[in-house]
């Protein structure tokens, strides 16, 4: 330790030497993070905050009880969630403003989504009814959608 300290000080004090800073690329966390860019990429609040802010500055996108202490069924709920997200992403093509929120109240599955006003309302109504009936037949439980529409995506930051 003493030798290392002596080496460090000699590099720092000598103005003609330069030290190389190296980090293995897997040291950095890349999960759910959008890297800083030129400043022209708009981000929503959900995308801008990193996953360690969940519970502090962010909420939960899927709310169910299976991750609590002493509760079962976490894997099943996760698989259902993933399927529902992909299904809705595909059904409402290019119309989602933000990630959908999935809530489970008792037997019911409630899907809350923010949509952009890209389609006429009749088409929206049809697609909502279609997803509700199809998902409720698939998962054998009542599925409800709560949809709000926006004009444009709500931008929080530009990165």
């Amino acid at each position, binding site marked *: 330790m003493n030798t290392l300290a002596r080496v460090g000080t000699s590099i720092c004090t000598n103005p003609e030497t330069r030290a190389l800073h190296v980090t*293995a690329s*897997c*040291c950095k*966390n890349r*999960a759910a993070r959008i890297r800083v860019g030129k400043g022209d990429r708009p981000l929503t609040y959900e995308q801008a905050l990193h996953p360690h802010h969940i*519970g502090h500055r962010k909420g*939960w996108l899927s*709310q*169910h*009880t299976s*991750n*609590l*202490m*002493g*509760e079962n069924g976490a894997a099943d709920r996760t698989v259902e969630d993933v399927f529902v997200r992909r299904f809705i992403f595909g059904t409402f093509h290019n119309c989602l403003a933000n990630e959908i929120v999935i*809530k*489970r*109240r*008792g037997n019911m599955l*409630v899907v809350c989504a923010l949509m952009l006003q890209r389609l006429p*309302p009749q088409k*929206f109504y049809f697609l909502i009814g279609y997803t509700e009936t199809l998902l409720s037949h698939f998962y054998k439980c009542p599925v409800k959608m*709560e*949809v*709000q*529409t926006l004009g444009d995506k709500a931008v929080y930051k530009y990165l």
Partner: protein
Amino acid sequence: MAVPMILGRNIHSFARIVLGASQSGSIGLNTCRNRGIYTTLRPFRLTLSACLHTGTVVSSQPSSTVTVTEEPDTLYQKVSVLVKGHDKAVLDSYEFFATLTAKELGVTLGKVFEPPKNIERLTLLKSVHIFNKHRVQYEMRTHYRCIELCHVTGSTAQVYLEYIQRNLPEGVAMEVTKTAMERIPEHILKPMWKDLPTDPPTEEKPNQ
């Protein structure tokens, strides 16, 4: 003479039409609310505010749901409701809701306390292959809240718990522990030796 008769008929028909509009309009408004879509209301619903309200025309007898049984109601010494969740703020508001309902319904509250939180931590490898020195840590926090009700009857407990459970927020789990009180069975009430006939102590000679 003729004028009030005509007026009477007009008012009656107007009331019927208005009542029909209000019934269909209210049903329509309910469905609109359930959809949650911000669409503009169609013009005929806006005229509801100006209509008459004749309450006596449609009267329905409320069906009595009170059942009378012969057997006595179970008595609970303590009903303990433990709520678990990931978000402390949600549990705070739920505790406020539960205590408010208990106060309104006249249920005696015992302790309302917060057992310490439980954090389950996982330390996993960050990379798919090698790089054992770089790991990632996840944690799952479970917050608890306990509400105790003292000295409730079975039917009160059932009603309270059903109301509480219908309004349980998503992502919150509940465990209910009931401590029932029962009458001591009669054969244990008195000690056995009191009922035995009091015999004088007989001297038994050892048989040899």
